[in-house]
Every structure is written in C-alpha cells, then in structure tokens.
C-alpha cells in the first residue's frame, strides 16, 4: 500500500468539498453568497482535478490502491487482525464514478445558486451539498468495505439533512426521517455482511478480497449466498430497491436540486456502484435474487409512475424504475451495463430533475402536473432540454439512454428471457409516463393561473440544463461502456464513433426496445395530448387506484412497523415501567419499607413485650444451640 498523501490529486478531489462544507459551517454560514461561491468553487476545483486525474491515469489503468491505516486492531499472538484503511482505490469504475459525481454535481451546484436564491438558509444548503459531495466521493474512492460503509452512512446522513432542509415543513422532516431509517434498514444487512466477510476472509480490502477469492473460490463456503444477500441489502436501501423503495418518492420533499443530485444522479446510484465494485463476491443464487429484485422494482415503480400527479414523484418513480434496471443488469452478470446506464441516467435524470425544478421554480413551487400545461412557449430552454432528457430516458435511438438501456436489455435477452420481457414492458411504461408528463406539463392547455404567468428561469439555471442536455444526447456514444469493461490495461478506444453508434442494431433485443418506445409514445399521445385530467382512473379504477396509492406499500409498512417495533416498544416500555422499575425495584423498595414498618411494631415501648421478646430470642438461641 502506498502512502495516502503520495498522490495529492485524489485527496484534493475528496477533501475540497469537505473543506468547503467545514468553512461554510464554521465561518460563512451567515453570508449565503460567499458560501455558494465557496461551495461551487470547491466542486469545480474537484471536477477539474478529477478530469486531470482521469487524463493522467488513462495511460495505465491497472487498479491502484493507496491508503493509510485508519483503524488497526491486530495481534500476532492472539491471531486476530482487523485492519481498516482509509484509502483510494483508483480503477476504471471509480474514475468513471468520480467524473459523474463531480461533473453532474458541478452542474447541480451551479443550478442551485439560482434555484435556492433567497432562501433563508442559503449557506447551510451549500454546506450540506458540499458535505454530500464529499461523502459520495468517499464511497467512490473507498478501497475497503468499512470505509465504504462509513461514507455510505455519511451519504445517508447528508441526504437526511438535505431532504429535511425545509425542516419547518412537517412533511419534509418526516420524509428525511423516513429516508434515513429506510436506508438504515438496508445498512443493517450491509454491516452484517461486512462483518461476515471479514470473519470469513480476514480482510475487507476489495483488492485483497478479490485476490483471495480468485485463488480460493470456496473461501466463503456455504455462507456465500448469505454474504451476497446481506451485502446486497445495502444496495437495496441506498438504491431504493424493493422492498426498501418507499423512501425515495417521499424524499422529493427536499429542494429540487437535491433531488437531482442525490435522488437521481449520485446517491441512489451508490448501490449499483457498490454492487459493481464487489461483484466478485456474488454467487449465482444471490445474483439471481439481485436480478429479480431489480426487475421487480423496475416494473413496480414504472407502474406506479404512470399514475402519479406530482412532477417530482413521477421522476422519482422513474428513477426507481431505472435503478431497478441497473440492479437487474448487475444481477445478469453485466455490471458494466449497469454502470453504463448509471452514467447516462445520471446525465438525463439530473437533467430532468433540474428541468422539473425549473418548472417548479417558475410556478412558485407548484408541483402538480395537472395545474401546469402549455409551458413550452414560456420556458423554451427548459422544454427542449426536458424533452431531450425524456427522449434519452425513453430510449429514443441514438440518445444516451438508448445505448445503455439497450445493453441491459441485450444482457437480459442473452441470459434471462422473462426478465427481458419485463424490461421491455418497463421501457414501454417509461416512455408512456414520461410523455404523459411532457404532454400534460409542456403541451396541452394551461391549467392554472400560475402556469399562465410562468417565465423562463435565469441562465444560471438553464446553463446547467444545456450542458446536461448535451451529455444526455451524446452520452451513449462517447465510449463509457468500453471504458467500464475492463478488457484492456489501458484505454484504447478500439471502436470508432460510427461503430459505437450502430452497434446495438445488430441485436434483436434492440428492436423490442424501439418498439416499446413507439408504442408507449403513441399510447401516451392518444391519452394525454389533450387531456385536462387523467382519463385512466375512470377506465381501470381499481388497478389505477392501487398504482396511484403506490400499491399500498407505505400503509403496509406503517402497519408492519406498528405491529413490530411500536408494539415491541410499547411492551418494553410497559415492562420497564411496571415490571422492572415497578414490581422489582419498587417492589423490593416497598417490601423493605414494609418489613421495616412491620418489624418496628415489635418496639411497642412496653417492657413486657421487650422481656417477652428477650425470652423468645433466648429460647430460640437455646433451641438452636442445645436442642437441635
């Protein structure tokens, strides 16, 4: 292992945002603009450094790991060793992710300056944002499980802070809490999995683990499945997979840039990133579970998205659905496809969220799509970029989403046909609900006062939209997929642009995808192009109400929690109050006092009683000593 500070660049990338967060928290919180500048400069600096690092590392891409001991508890005599490092693992995966986080992050930071202007806690917002960036980069660079877990938790808490940014609003505070706790449930499995891995393998370092597993494939023995699933729990929480998906839609209570950054581009992608990172740990069984979980999440979320009315919630369920895709890709032995989709998704989903933010901003925080409409003319930049994002998401050929989604569908087509068909249906739904959104919000008639008076957002907000739109357009053909597949030790982009552009069309699955897009678009156009309200609930009442109500998951969980934790807590509390401190403690106390009062009654003050008790005592003593 190399010295941590031997290489300054990763340190710079990681700690610049932290520095910004600390400086803002301690010194400049009151001065919002200065804080914003600090934060933006920090992430831009990090982004610059990331690009520099990326370029400098393009030549030799064998994984590099350098670290410092963070926590070492070992003893030769006792045969115990727990070494936890703080390190940087630089390989294709982390470099790519680093670029996404800093790049998309930069855009969102800049956008936020416009979006959050005038907020009372402007400074605090940027502190949290910078802190989040730091945490996220920590996950990206982690070279071992525990470090990853640490930043994993920090990401959790920073998302908690950001979702609950408007803590005065009860809903936001509740959503933050819910997000944090749901994540914690996932982390529960993750941490156990980490401990399990350590106890079986004796190390937590990714490279070491991979080497151990390569040299000894049965290292994990019968626990392999358990370990795999436990680790996957972490991803389920963070990437909001079924059954822990419930937090993500609620998290839309946070400011929109937060939704874009955290709940579209980066944090929720951490689960997929982690799965790719430790892909070598999973065996067949766990991969199957992963794939089906992803698939199920994708279809379920897509269905729910169809019936949502809140612009951000639609995007949130869409995110869920796309994350399901990515997880499914990992489960189908294709982490590169997952990562590819992650990257493109980061571009277009961030774009979509920011676009939605722009709309919301323009409409003074109106989020119901049925109160919008006809925004195309008033907000043309927003509209066009939003449209690009939608097309990319729906897998319109030659846009970024097309390629990444296609590689996932291709993987499914190769290995798991049921999942493939499921994926196609999801693709159809995606197109359907996204264009529903487009039709209702941007086209059609204006449905409210606010949407009549909407106007385009300032350049500081539309600028990032444009940049992201460009990325969403071309993200599929710049070679991300090739970069992720670690075939070569150095990057040689062997394919030409045209090769990349045309590659998908050689596979049958692609046409299914395009078909799904076309059908979805058509159906959406038919239903929503002119609609003033949603026609579907009248057509399919029960199914739609189930979808509208998110298949009652929240209610189910509320019931589950009430039945388990609340009930147990109530029982524990009652036991504590009545049994332990009541019966046992107070009982002992009361019994002692009672005995005292009872015994005291012997002290009648009457000589006769005393002499009788004397005699009785003596009789007792004599009996014990002489007669027994």
């Amino acid at each position: 292992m190399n010295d941590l500070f031997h290489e300054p660049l990763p340190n710079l990338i990681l700690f610049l945002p932290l520095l910004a967060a600390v400086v803002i928290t301690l010194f400049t919180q009151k001065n919002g603009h200065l804080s914003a500048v600090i934060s933006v400069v920090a992430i831009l600096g990090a982004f610059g450094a990331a690009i520099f690092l990326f370029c400098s590392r393009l030549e030799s891409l064998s994984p590099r790991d350098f670290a410092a001991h963070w926590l070492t508890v070992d003893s030769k005599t006792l045969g115990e060793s727990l070494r936890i490092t703080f390190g940087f693992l630089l390989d294709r995966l982390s470099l790519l992710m680093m670029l996404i986080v800093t790049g998309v992050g930069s855009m969102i930071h800049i956008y936020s300056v416009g979006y959050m202007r005038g907020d009372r806690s402007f400074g605090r917002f940027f502190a949290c944002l910078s802190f989040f960036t730091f945490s996220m980069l920590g996950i990206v660079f982690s070279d071992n499980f525990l470090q990853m877990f640490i930043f994993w938790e920090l990401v959790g808490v920073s998302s908690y802070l950001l979702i609950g940014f408007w803590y005065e609003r009860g809903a936001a505070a509740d959503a933050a809490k819910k997000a944090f706790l749901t994540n914690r449930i996932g982390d529960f499995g993750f941490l156990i999995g980490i401990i399990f891995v350590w106890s079986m393998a004796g190390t937590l370092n990714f490279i070491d683990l991979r080497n151990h597993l390569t040299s000894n494939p049965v290292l994990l023995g019968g626990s392999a499945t358990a370990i795999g699933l436990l680790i996957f729990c972490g991803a389920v929480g963070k990437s909001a997979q079924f059954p822990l998906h419930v937090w993500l839609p609620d998290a839309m209570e946070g400011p929109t840039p937060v939704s874009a950054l955290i709940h579209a581009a980066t944090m929720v992608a951490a689960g997929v990133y982690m799965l790719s990172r430790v892909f070598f740990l999973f065996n067949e069984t766990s991969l199957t579970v992963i794939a089906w979980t992803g698939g199920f999440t994708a279809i379920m979320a897509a269905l729910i998205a169809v019936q949502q009315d809140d612009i951000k919630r639609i995007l949130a369920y869409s995110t869920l659905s796309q994350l399901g895709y990515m997880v499914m890709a990992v489960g189908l032995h294709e982490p590169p496809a997952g990562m590819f989709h992650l990257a493109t998704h980061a571009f277009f989903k961030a774009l979509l969220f920011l676009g939605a933010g722009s709309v919301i901003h323009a409409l003074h925080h109106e989020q119901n799509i049925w109160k919008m409409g006809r925004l195309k003319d008033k907000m043309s930049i927003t509209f066009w970029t939003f449209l690009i994002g939608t097309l990319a998401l729906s897998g319109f050929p030659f846009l970024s989403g097309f390629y990444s989604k296609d590689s996932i569908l291709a993987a499914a087509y190769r290995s798991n046909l049921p999942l493939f068909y499921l994926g196609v249906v999801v693709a159809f739904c995606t197109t359907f609900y996204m264009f529903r959104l487009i039709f209702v919000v941007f086209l059609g008639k204006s449905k409210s006062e606010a949407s009549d008076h909407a106007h385009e957002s300032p350049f500081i907000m539309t600028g990032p939209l444009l940049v992201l739109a460009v990325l969403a357009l071309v993200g599929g053909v710049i070679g991300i997929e090739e970069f992720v597949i670690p075939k070569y030790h150095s990057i040689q982009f062997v394919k030409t642009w045209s090769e990349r552009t045309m590659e998908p069309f050689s596979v049958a699955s692609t046409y299914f995808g395009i078909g799904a897009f076309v059908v979805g678009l058509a159906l959406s156009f038919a239903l929503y192009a002119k609609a003033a309200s949603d026609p579907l609930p009248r057509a399919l009442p029960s199914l739609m109400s189930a979808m509208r109500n998110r298949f009652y998951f929240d209610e189910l969980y509320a019931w589950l929690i009430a039945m388990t934790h609340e009930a147990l807590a109530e029982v524990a509390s009652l036991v504590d109050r009545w049994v332990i401190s009541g019966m046992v403690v107070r009982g002992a106390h009361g019994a002692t006092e009672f005995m005292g009062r009872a015994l005291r009654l012997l002290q009648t003050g009457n000589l006769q009683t005393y002499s009788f008790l004397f005699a009785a005592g003596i009789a007792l003593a004599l009996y014990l000593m002489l007669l027994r």
Partner: protein
Amino acid sequence: MNLALIVPEISVVALALLILLLDLWTPVAAKVRLGYLAIGGLLLILAMTWAHDLSAAPAVGFGGMFQADGLGLFFKRFFIIAAVAAIALAMDFSARIASGISELYALMLIALSGMMFAASVNDLVLAFVALELISVTFYILVSFQRGRLLSLEAGVKYLILSALSAAFLVFGIALIFGASGVTNFTDLNHAAPTLVLNKAFWLGLLLVLIGLSFKIAAFPLQMWAPDVYQGAPTPVTAFLAIGSKAAGFALALRILFIAFPLIAARWDKLLIVTSGVTILYGNLCAIPQRSLKRLLGYSSIANAGYLLLGVSAVSASGSSAVLYYLAGYLATLVAVFAVISVVGRESDDISAFAGLHQRSPFLAAGMTLGMVSLAGIPPLAGFLGKFLLLRSVIDRGFSDPAYFWLAGVAVIGVVISLYYYFGVVRTMYWQSVPADAAPLQFSAPMKTLLALSVIGMLYLGVCPSAAFNATVEAVKSLRF
C-alpha cells in the same frame, strides 16, 4: 498485687472522687467548669497510657483477674476519649439539668473506670462486677434528667432489661464455674478441651454471651436501644452508644478469644446468624424513624451487627477490624451527637433539623459527614471500618460460603441504611427552616469537639496506617 497495672484506672477513680469533693466548695455557677478539670485530667491520663510499653508481654495481676495487655490498653484509650467527648457534651448540656452537674461528671468517670476494668478483665467474677459497675452507673445516668419523663422511663426500661440480662449473665457464669470449677480466663482456656462436649458449659457460655449481647445491643437483646437512646440525656446516649457498647465488645472479645478460642471457632454459625439478624433488624426498623436519637438507637443495633461481622470471622483480622470500626464509630458518633446536642435542644425529631444547612452550614456539614461515615462511604472512617470488617468476613468465605451470605446481608444492610441516613441529610439540605426556629447557640468547646471528631473521621478514613497497626498490635493478645 501489682498496683502499677491499674494506675490509669486508679487515676480515673481519683479524678472522680476529686470532682465530688471539689463540688462541695465550688459555687453553683462554676460547677460546670469542673468539666474542664475532668477533661484535663482524662487527657493527662490518656497521655500517661503511652508510658506503657506495648511490646512487653501481657502482665497479669490481682490473682490472675486483671490482665494488662495491648487489647486492654487500646480499649482504655478508646474509653478515655469517649469519656472526654461525653463530658464535653455534658458541659454543653448542663443548662438542661436541674443540678448535680459535677455528679454527672463523677458518675461518667466512675462508669469509665468500670469500662477500663472491663477492658482488662481476665476473670468472670471481675467481668461481672465491672459490667455491673457500668450498668448501675448508667441506670443513674440514663435517668439523670429526672424532671423529664422520657429520661425516667428510659431509666426504668434500661434498669429492668439490664438486670434481666445480668441475671442471664450470672446464671451463665454459675454454669461455667460449675462445669469447670474455675472462673479465670487463663484457667478456663486450659480447661476448654474437656469442656467442649459439656452441655452445661455450652449453656453457660451461651447465657454469658446473651448477657453481653445486651450491652452491645445485639440480637436477641437489642430491643432496649431505641427507647433508651431516645430517652436518655444526649451526652449519656453518646456515652452509652460508644462506651458501653465498646465495653461489651471488649468483654466479648476477651471471653471468646482469650478464654474460649476453641469454642468460638465452633460457634461461628451462631455468631454469623446473630450478626446477620442484628444488621437486618437495626436497619429495617430504622427506615420509618422520625426521632433522630431513636434512629441512632436502631443504627446502633445495626452497627453492633456490623461489629459482630468481625467477631464472627473468628480471626485476628476480624478482631482488629472490630477495633478499627469502633474507633471510627467513636469519631463519627461524637460528631453526630455534638450536632444533636446543639440542634436537638427542643426536640430530636428529624424535622428539627430541617434546613439546618441554612441555619449553620458547619453543623450541617458535620452531621452530613457523620451520616456519610455511618453509611460507610469514603473518605471517612466508616468506610474503612466496613471495608476491614468485610475483608475479614470474606476471608473466611472461601472455606465456608455462609460467610459470603453474611457479607451479602451486610451489604444489603448498608444499602438500606443509606436510605435513612440520607433521609437525614435530605432534611438538612432540602427542606426549609421551620419558621419558629430559634437561633442556634454553639459554644466553643462544641465547635472544637465537632471539628476534632470530623478530623478524626477523616484521619481514620484517609490515613489508616497508624490506627490499623495499633489494632493489629492490640489483638495480638487474643488467640484464634
């Protein structure tokens, strides 16, 4: 006869007589000041006791009745200090006695001489006479405030019950004498092997111990303590609680571990049960107590139980722990009684102490320290005493688990005792002063006494070495 052996005792008696004589020529107003004479004389005698060489072999005199040894010397010093404190308390108390303050001093001195003889007893006959000397003097002392009904009532109770215990003691002595033909401890010790199986002797020893249990206020003869403590004048209560109890222990140690070490070792179960029951009785009864002196009566029972821990251990460390605990108990009780005597003039109900902290922080602090020490909490004497006692008990526990149970009972007793000791502290600190509270009169001698006893508590709690060595030396004359 070797009069040199009993020089301290003779001096005390002489002092008593001197005071009685001087009383005739002293004007009434100045009689209180005879106390200074008594205290001065006692301190002189105390200083004199250091003239004795501790390392010398125990000297026996008066037909083998009297044995001057380390144990005796320790107890004599102890009694003298206790008497000094009692007389100092009595000087402060004089205002509440109609007349006869100098007789009070003299009687205390006579009781002291009885205790000092008891400390060196080596014969059952002398033991009986010394005990009776103490008892008879205390009948008078307890009922000294004969204008007060409580005092008289306490006197009568003490009289009857003490006489009852004396009857058992005498009958026990008779049986021991009958079984062995001797009354001298040395002779009894020689005869012990043949006596071990003699039931009449068992009975005799048992009755003697029962008789002694009255003096130390241990089960089964513990009932008198609360009533008498409550009724007796405060200085007398103090002297009774410290001196009389210690005299009982001096005799118990001598009888058990000089005369009958062989039998004591076999009777450990009896001692264990007695100790445990006494601890529980005293502590449990004290819980709901409102009268402070009465509370101290129960506490005195509990403390007798703790002291019996050391006796029941039947070991040198146990006995030395008893001595150490007694020393700490002396310092503690003097502080407590000094405060009671100042504050409890009108009433010894705990409510009289309400908000004492505001009336006199010094008194409240003294009382708090006393309670803390009684409760056995560092850094005061009570802690180290209990520590040593428990140590001696646990030491036996590895061979006999009953001792662990006894230690457990002792711990529970201590915990219960915290309840009422802290009740007192609570009253002083977080209740408000009664509206009709008279200002406290707090004389210089009392201040000195309180300060000295606090210093004593701290000294015994923090610098145990010297005192501990003294106790270890003292118990060398005992056999185990």
